[in-house]
């Protein structure tokens, strides 16, 4: 198979770091804080590399959008087995307002330019928890999508995806080219050890600007306030017989206001 896979990776604050809100409530403290690749993106890269090892795809291209530091994340993807990287330079104001809509436009443009047959993304980023980029990219490209994938198999020119949904597992068959978003149980990502990182230094990372791809980076969302919420995180657990210590996590809920209707409902850009 001579397919090319595009894998999107995002540089986020490390999952183990305790998040602190800026005193002026405009965002979260990111200076000097440890960053790493989004865990779901790691799973996506691992799946792409596994497909390459099984000889279903020919080339794995890692893509990331952001400032200069994002190259570290691309290097990690290269160390895990990607063949080359593409760094889409977004910095300053554009980076602060960078969201799933802009990223999906960029990925759609890149997929057409690189003639990718498959796009694999993480299902959501652990910083914004949007869970939108994969779906939006598929819509912009008019490609089928297999989201929350816990198993991916290529059969001829069709993709068999087992999706993890609330009711259990759903198996679908979609035509290539397609977009897949990786869920937690898709695979076990390999660790990018030092020898692999050294070898990855020889691999190329291309620089691209969103303007080159003809993508409009303006955002329709404005973040009004970020506040801390001292609260038990996630689902409220009431059936905890035997568990004497509930872990209290501080969760942050960005308060956003949209000035336009949901982007998914408007015509594709």
């Amino acid at each position: 198979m001579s397919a090319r896979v595009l894998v999107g990776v995002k540089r986020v604050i490390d999952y183990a770091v305790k998040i602190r809100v800026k005193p002026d409530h405009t965002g979260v403290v990111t200076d000097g804080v440890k960053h790493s690749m989004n865990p779901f993106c790691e799973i996506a890269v691992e799946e792409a590399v596994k497909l390459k090892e099984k000889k279903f795809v020919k080339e794995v291209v890692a893509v990331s959008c952001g400032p200069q530091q994002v190259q570290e994340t691309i290097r990690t993807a290269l160390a895990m087995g990607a063949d080359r990287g593409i760094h889409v330079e977004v910095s300053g104001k554009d980076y602060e307002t960078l969201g799933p809509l802009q990223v999906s436009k960029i990925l759609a443009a890149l997929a057409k330019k690189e003639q990718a047959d498959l796009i694999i993304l993480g299902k959501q980023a652990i910083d914004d928890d949007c869970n939108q980029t994969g779906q939006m990219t598929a819509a912009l490209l008019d490609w089928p999508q297999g989201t929350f994938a816990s198993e991916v198999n290529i059969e001829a020119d069709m993709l068999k995806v087992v999706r993890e949904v609330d009711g259990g597992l759903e198996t679908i068959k979609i035509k290539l080219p397609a977009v897949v978003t990786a869920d937690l149980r898709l695979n076990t990502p390999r660790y990018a050890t030092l020898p692999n990182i050294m070898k990855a230094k020889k691999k190329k990372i291309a620089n691209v600007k969103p303007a080159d791809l003809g993508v409009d980076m303006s955002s329709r969302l404005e973040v009004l306030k970020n506040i801390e919420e001292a609260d038990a995180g996630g689902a409220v657990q009431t059936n905890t017989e035997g568990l004497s210590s509930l872990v209290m996590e501080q969760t942050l809920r960005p308060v956003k206001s949209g000035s336009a209707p949901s982007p998914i409902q408007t015509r594709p850009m």
Partner: protein
Amino acid sequence: MQRRNLAFILESIHTMALPPHVLVYCLPQDKKRDIKMSNPLRGEVIRLYKNLLYLGREYPKGTTYFRERLKAAFMKNKDVTEPEKIQKLIDRGEFVIKELEALYFLRKYRAMKKRYYEPEH
């Protein structure tokens, strides 16, 4: 070839029960260099140390904690000379690398599972 000579030399040192530095004086120049270079496994040991140091950056109890203990563990064995013993220690080091990778994966997996998924009964 080099290794066989070195092992032979070390073996003969032990059997002769003379202190090694005395015997070094009696050896021709190139053999002295062999012993000073201590071991062809030296490169592997250094590589192992660098790999472990790199892995230690993500250690839950902190990088300095890990680095101190790593250095202490390596320094404790600095006088080992037999290649088989050194190889055994290197293998143990590789095992520790695998254990660390497994630790990091499990931590991350459990954190993600707790944050994003309903608790299973």
